[in-house]
């Protein structure tokens, strides 16, 4: 993380260290100013970041509705969690939605970036058009997608009917709900990932493409033999960020199907379930335990993804895109 350099800053002067270096020469008031400048972050982090983590561990061993007295229950919350079918269901839902959104999303993003990387007119207009979904309110988008996927008057079902196909009860069926949520994720994040890939593509030397052209490679071969392998670090970056984002999915299902996750909790995600238990049912201790469960799952899944993408790349094949 420390090796990435956000923003393109002017080149650094080598004699820069002249003004740093020896802090013994600094006056007391200057040191005070420096610590004052960095302290807001540490103060706020201590209150709203560090302390809550310890507190949430403590809370997860308590039974507490937020008003009455706390009651120590040991590992009971965790035992309950492990035997709670809706907790497991929301994990499975989260992974299913992650799977059916992330793979198409990253694939489309790569294809779009590949096309934009050709010498093509209007590239910056395309970039802006593809990025717009990412800056819009998720609540607004969930409402709009809710109307498009609506069972009764939705545009999608009207289109299916127009084509004389069977309509789908999108927001009543297990897969319908997940497809609708995944569609929002794909719509919102494909352009974002395409912009990231495009920047990576522009760093690949053009001689490689020219050499491939001389060797008679077609577009498909160029894409899978040159573009994908050389983009591996950036693909890894996007896989990890979309893993973290996907595990935290909340707004889309909450607005689309409500706090309970819709019929049969089919749209309940891990964070939505945490929200429902803690803030709707006032099970604060249980909510804290779910938070820790979620944390463990996120870490494990990020590690697995990291290993998969790394491993696939090390075998030097095109499997990187599959991870």
């Amino acid at each position: 993380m420390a090796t990435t350099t956000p923003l393109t800053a002017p080149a650094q002067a080598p004699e820069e260290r002249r003004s740093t270096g020896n802090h013994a020469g600094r006056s007391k008031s200057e040191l005070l100013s420096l610590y004052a400048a960095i302290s807001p972050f540490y103060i706020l982090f201590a209150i709203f970041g560090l302390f809550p983590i310890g507190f949430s561990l403590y809370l997860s061993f308590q039974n507490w509705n937020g008003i009455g007295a706390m009651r120590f229950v040991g590992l009971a919350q965790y035992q309950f969690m492990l035997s709670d079918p809706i907790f497991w269901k929301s994990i499975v839902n989260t992974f299913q939605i992650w799977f059916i959104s992330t793979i198409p999303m990253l694939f489309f993003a790569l294809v779009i970036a590949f096309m934009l990387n050709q010498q093509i007119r209007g590239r910056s207009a395309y970039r802006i058009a593809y990025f717009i979904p990412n800056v819009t309110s998720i609540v607004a988008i969930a409402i709009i997608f809710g109307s498009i996927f609506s069972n009764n008057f939705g545009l999608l079902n009207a289109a299916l009917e127009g084509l004389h196909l069977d309509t789908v009860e999108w927001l009543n069926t297990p897969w319908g709900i997940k497809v609708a949520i995944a569609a929002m994720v794909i719509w919102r994040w494909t352009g974002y990932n395409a912009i990231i890939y495009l920047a990576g593509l522009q760093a690949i030397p053009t001689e490689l493409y020219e050499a491939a052209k001389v060797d008679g490679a077609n577009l498909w071969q160029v894409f899978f033999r040159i573009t994908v392998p050389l983009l591996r670090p950036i693909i890894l970056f996007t896989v990890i960020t979309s893993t973290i984002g996907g595990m935290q999915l909340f707004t889309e299902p909450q607005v689309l199907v409500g706090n309970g996750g819709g019929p049969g909790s089919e749209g309940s995600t891990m964070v939505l379930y945490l929200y429902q238990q803690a803030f709707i049912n006032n099970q604060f201790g249980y909510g804290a335990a779910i938070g820790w469960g979620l944390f463990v799952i996120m870490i494990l899944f990020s590690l697995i993804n990291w290993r998969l993408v790394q491993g696939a790349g090390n075998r030097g094949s095109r499997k990187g895109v599959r991870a």
Partner: protein
Amino acid sequence: MNATATQRVWSVVTHVLLLFGVAISIFPFYWMFVMASRTTEDIFKFPPELLPGTHLLENIGKVFDSVNLLGSTANTIFVAVVTTVLVLFFDSIAAFAFAKFDFPAKNLLFVVLLVTFMIPSQLSTVPSFVIMANFGWVGSFQALIVPGAVNAFGIFLLRQYAQGAVSAELLDAARIDGCNFWRQYWHVAVPLLRPALAFLGIFTFINAWNDYFWPLVVLIDPGRQTLQVALSQLNGLYNTDYSMVMAGTLLAVIPLIIVFFLGARQFLADLAAGAVKQ
């Protein structure tokens, strides 16, 4: 001859595919506009009307009649603007200190800052709410603004930029002229950091405007809602008046689009550079 012809065909194919993608990107906005400009009866028609109607102003009027949404827009503007200003100030003074000065325990403190990146917010959601309740901040804007008034991401970003952009000579000259840390910050660093501050400002504003989870948890009083929360409740309450809900979503989205367009080119370049540069 043959080669250029193939090239031209490929170019046309590429544009057609890209424009198809753009159409998908843009379509939900168009559809929102169609529904916001029609009556609710129109929306339930089959086959659906695909062109905008003439009821846009009427529907927007209905949204503004619901005091809630007007007030919540003002609330959102307030929260987003104050958060952005505070983040820019606190992040940049810390970034400037880290980038250009030396002081005991500096490296350790910076490592601590980087580690905080990796803590997922869900872990502390429940205790954060309890803390807010103890402060008496539930239902107040402090609960939204204060925890987000400074962040590690922005400090890291601005520090990287400041290391290259703020030259040691200028700072030395300012020091010889008698400028202390704060005057060096204000007169030398801030002007040089402007591009990075613009990026961080747009990024922070958009995120604050769009935030939903935390305001939903912490703003219980209907008079204190933000736009996103009010919007979701509008969606739940007036389930039948879809055209009004859509007019509301239109109002929630337009300011973001404007802010984005103001800095789009620079914003996209900086975003991509942040992810890719080694």
